[in-house]
């Protein structure tokens, strides 16, 4: 089925050359992107994408990871040059030779991870690259500080021009970045998942700033995965899928379900695909597992086909416990039995030999070797299987990679493609594939869907059900309540390194689980 038929025609740029920007709600869009395409070797990142952004408007740019949002942002900020198409700023066609040119034409981007100088002051960060100078060629500190103070005041920021950046929290750093954009009088501000590191209160602050920027007649391109935010803040939306624009319109004319459907290209069941599978014998029996600092007296059992949810707040010791089970942190005491046999896990290779597999939380840092190809990643944990007297058979590696890759529906140009070039969801599929190649009895998934797009997320959940159905025992560590409540047969809650309570599937409400995790639900633990 071709989804192109659903594509709505993009709004076209009014060809009349245009005016002065002080006319705020002028009909000429501040930013007009038309028929932009960009390809990389083997990948068509963007195809014929159009977008218009008017003054005083917030446009939500939505799409799954790998849909082409980042590529579009990189074109608008002068990091990439488009192969085809045109970008107009205030009616004037522009081509950006470099990021500085984009910046000069009034486009500023605020990124997910703020890229700034921690050891410099707020004022220096704001004016980095365009510091005011005295006639004798020195930095004009007085002007710089007073202008910074004014900008910070306008944003109602807590920091002062002299504050060292490293002393600020993420939200305050975002404000400095916005101040930096304003210092250059940026008219078009791109916010790339600006709320991902913010607390609820700070998000509220950000909404206030966005409203303020709107009122000043600036245009904002707002990239987010969170629908709640999109519906709260955006006026219009544009959706990309697989590098193509699949729709745009006013936010008030759509529902979340409409957008999800457009993003993934098919209706998606928001509910979790829990499969009811027979639960078998005990696979894992942990007794009084403790280490020096992170966890203490951990005991639980896990059966074949069972999915055990492990919930807790940040710092509760969940990942540390799992690393202990996987031989990555040394245990002080306790016994671990796999299918009744006590095993000593003093290294990750011992854990692998015992049939334990661990998909870690930090996919890029701990899970994947990004410069390696898909094949080399897939076989990394089970390399002995593919070697004879130490020599690796690439043909056998490729066979295994093909079958695992197809099973997990990995999307890539070829099996030798570097993992760093894949989207987050596909990277995660490869990491899971790497562990399935070890033919484990116990699979530990630590935040397996963190930061991946909806489509891949559903695929991972579905796959978990399938694996449990095949008799694998699974531990699901997750901070996402709907995920853990939807997928797990039992939920263990940890607080400050200890298991505080356990719920069977459906026996607890979200509120009960959260209150147990915050240390106030002890009574049930001793029941």
């Amino acid at each position: 089925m071709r989804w192109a038929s659903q594509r709505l025609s993009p709004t076209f740029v009014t060809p009349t050359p245009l005016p002065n920007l002080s006319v705020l709600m002028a009909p000429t869009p501040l930013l007009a992107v038309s028929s932009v395409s960009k390809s990389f070797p083997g990948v068509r990142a963007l195809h014929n994408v159009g977008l218009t952004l008017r003054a005083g408007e917030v446009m939500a740019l939505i799409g799954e990871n790998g849909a082409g949002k980042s590529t579009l942002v990189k074109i608008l900020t002068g990091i990439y040059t488009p192969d085809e198409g045109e970008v107009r700023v205030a009616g004037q066609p522009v081509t950006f030779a470099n990021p500085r040119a984009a910046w000069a034409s009034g486009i500023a981007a605020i990124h997910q991870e703020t890229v700034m100088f921690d050891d410099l002051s707020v004022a220096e960060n704001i004016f980095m690259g365009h510091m005011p100078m005295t006639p004798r060629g020195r930095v004009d500190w007085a002007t710089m500080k007073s202008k910074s103070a004014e900008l910070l005041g306008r944003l109602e920021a807590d920091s002062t021009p002299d504050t060292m950046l490293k002393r600020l929290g993420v939200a305050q750093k975002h404000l400095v970045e916005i101040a930096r954009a304003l210092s250059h009088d940026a008219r078009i501000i791109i916010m790339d998942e600006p709320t991902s590191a913010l607390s609820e209160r700070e998000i509220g602050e950000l909404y206030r700033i966005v409203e303020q920027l709107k009122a000043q007649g600036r245009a904002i391109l707002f990239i987010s995965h969170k629908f709640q935010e999109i519906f709260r803040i955006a006026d219009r939306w544009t959706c990309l899928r697989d590098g193509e624009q699949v729709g745009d319109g006013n936010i008030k004319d759509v529902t979340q379900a409409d957008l999800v459907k457009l993003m993934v290209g098919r209706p998606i069941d928001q509910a979790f695909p829990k499969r009811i599978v027979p639960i078998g014998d005990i696979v894992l029996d942990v007794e009084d597992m403790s280490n020096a600092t992170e966890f203490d007296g951990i005991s639980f059992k896990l059966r074949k086909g069972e999915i055990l949810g492990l919930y807790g707040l940040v710092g509760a010791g969940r990942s540390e416990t799992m690393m202990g089970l996987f031989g990555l942190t040394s245990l002080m005491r306790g016994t671990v039995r796999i299918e009744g046999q006590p095993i000593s896990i003093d290294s990750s290779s011992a854990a692998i030999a015992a049939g334990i597999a661990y998909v870690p939380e930090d996919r890029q840092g701990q899970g994947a070797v990004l410069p390696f190809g898909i094949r080399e990643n897939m076989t990394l944990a089970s390399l002995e299987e593919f070697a004879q007297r130490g020599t690796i058979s690439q043909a056998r590696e490729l066979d295994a990679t093909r079958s695992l890759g197809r099973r997990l529906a990995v999307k890539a140009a070829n099996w030798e493609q570097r993992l760093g070039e894949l989207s987050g969801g596909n990277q995660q599929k490869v990491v899971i594939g790497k562990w399935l190649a070890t033919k484990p009895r116990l699979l530990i998934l630590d935040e397996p869907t963190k930061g991946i797009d909806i489509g891949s997320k559903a695929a991972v959940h579905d796959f978990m059900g399938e694996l449990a159905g095949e008799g694998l025992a699974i531990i699901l560590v997750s901070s996402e309540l709907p995920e853990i409540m939807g997928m797990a047969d039992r939920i263990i809650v940890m607080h400050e390194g200890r298991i505080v309570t356990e719920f069977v599937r459906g026996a607890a409400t979200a509120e009960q689980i959260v209150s147990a995790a915050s240390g106030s639900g002890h009574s049930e633990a001793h029941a």
Partner: protein
Amino acid sequence: MSVTTPNRYDVADRAPFRIADLLLRWETILVLLLATVIAFNTYISPYFLDIYNLSDATFNFSEKAIVALAMALLIVSRDIDLSVAAIIAVASLAMGEASVAGASTPMLILIGLAVGAACGAFNGALVTGFGLPSIVVTIGTMSLFRGLAQVVLEDQAITKYPPSFAAIGQGYLAKGVPIPISFTTFLILAAIFAYVLHRTLIGRRIFAQGNNPVAARFSGIPVDRIRFWLFVLTGTMAGLAAVFLTARIGSTRPNIALGFELEAVTMVVLGGVSITGGSGTIPGVVLAVFVLGLTTFGLSLVNVPGIVINVLNGSLLIAAISLPIIARRLLGKRA
């Protein structure tokens, strides 16, 4: 299913072959560089393309090249050993003392290798046991080992070696076969190292931990054990280099092999091994050995002083590593 319709989820086995990829390979650049060096040297000196001269030229770089092979593995795995030249001094000293005490040639070789391995193990234990950065540890042991040799030898030299020992360093494969033993050893080791790094389990693990040591550990790779043994291997290769060098020059002096470590690192880096770890090839290192070795030899044929050759070698390294970056920029502009 016999008929498969290609859809966007189809994944090819490998990237399509493109001639540009081959041309931009580091090894291709090195081959061109080597051809240039040979052509230039042939042009400036009629004595260059002479089989006897060329084979004698290998004496000057084979010892360093043997060390460079092990150094390549170490750098790919994200470590470095700057104490290799000092290890050569200590190993040479041990052989000298043993020789004075009357040890036989096989015994001397064994002592050289063993002392090298022990020094490497010392480095490896410090790096993996205390989690210290290898560059710091080996700068320390560089002074330590060299200092040790200097304290024992003062300004003396040990020159009493049995004739059969000297034959190892100065001898050829056989009568009428003008290939030195040291060069032959280098070639054999290069083949073994290339096979190990590019075809085996250990090689893949070295690349994996060079690229991402954390992910390697999470994948069950005994990262520290591999690091330790790579230091032992590098020390042993330094010991072997000490055997050839001591036998060739017939003496042990406190300043023996001074500056070898940087020349070995230069061979490795010019060979295309990333100094930050995780990538590189043994064929690249072998090509770089020839480029550097033959440049030095050609220039010395026309009596260019050693100091000037150093300047040229340095320039060569800088030019060679900036070449691909310049090329990429030019190509990037066109794209």
